[in-house]
């Protein structure tokens, strides 16, 4: 039996008894002033819509109480002792990350095209050159969209992250770390921005735990 890790926090959360992935009991492992929420599993749970939301719900219940660092889905450690060793060895880094996201929530802003710029959508390109030119055109449009989105929204956010053209019809997947309590203001800005974007639709979801702002490459 191993431990599936959900999130790290520095407040011992006063939580209702929680059920995690597969209705397993969620337990707290503490060390070095940090707390990890975990549940016991024989193997990494398979990814499904249900397990994803079960995982997310555990993190959200902590996020409502204090600062939280969500874990990458599928992180298993063999024993509570290993979890404690990890907390001790990475304490400084984890505390710095908690400080960065404290009081903040993540909002997702996704750009969606109703269809991919031709002929990227299908393998219908007449030649490799056509394909390449369409691909470059899509990248240029996606980068222009990203610039417009950031010009309008960066002022509302502590930090932001981008991924360009993750799929043929998704030119932009952006994440914004905003102060908790400013969600409505942010959404109004997204709505105003969306109104001027023609065929590109913006889809805003959240508030999420700060998944996009706790990675190793995050700059302060």
């Amino acid at each position, binding site marked *: 039996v*191993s431990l599936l*890790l959900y999130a*790290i926090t520095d407040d011992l959360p006063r939580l209702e008894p929680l059920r995690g992935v597969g209705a397993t009991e969620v337990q707290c492992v503490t060390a070095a002033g940090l707390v990890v929420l975990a549940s016991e599993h024989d*193997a*990494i749970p*398979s*990814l*499904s*819509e249900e397990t*994803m*939301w079960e*995982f*997310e719900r555990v993190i959200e219940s902590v996020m409502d109480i204090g600062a939280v*660092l*969500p*874990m*990458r*889905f*599928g*992180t*298993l*450690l*063999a024993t509570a002792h*290993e979890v404690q060793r*990890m907390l001790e060895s990475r304490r400084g880094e*984890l505390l710095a*990350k908690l400080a960065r996201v404290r009081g903040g929530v*993540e909002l*997702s802003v*996704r750009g*969606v095209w*109703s269809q991919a710029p031709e002929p990227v959508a299908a393998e219908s390109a007449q030649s490799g050159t056509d394909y390449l030119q369409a691909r470059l055109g899509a990248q240029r449009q996606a980068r222009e969209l990203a610039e417009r989105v950031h010009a309008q929204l960066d002022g509302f956010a502590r930090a932001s992250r981008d*991924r360009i053209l*993750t*799929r043929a*019809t998704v030119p932009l*997947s952006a*994440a914004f770390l905003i102060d908790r309590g400013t969600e409505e203001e942010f*959404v109004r800005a*997204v*709505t105003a921005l*969306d*109104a001027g*974007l*023609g*065929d590109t*639709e*913006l*889809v*805003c*979801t*959240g*508030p*999420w735990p700060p*998944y*996009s702002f*706790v*990675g*190793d490459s995050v700059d302060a």
Partner: protein
Amino acid sequence: VSVSVATRARNVALIDLLDRLLQGGVVIEGDITLAAADVDLVRLDLRLMVAAIDKALGA
């Protein structure tokens, strides 16, 4: 133009959650017991799920 501001609208938010669970979050280097077979399984699940989301969104 249409605005979709979804807060916890599950089918709309699913792809944003998927992206975050698999590419965001704290990574513990070297300690994750992700066997190669598991990774393939996750990728398979992922393809099926993305196809289902496309269908749901009419994309």
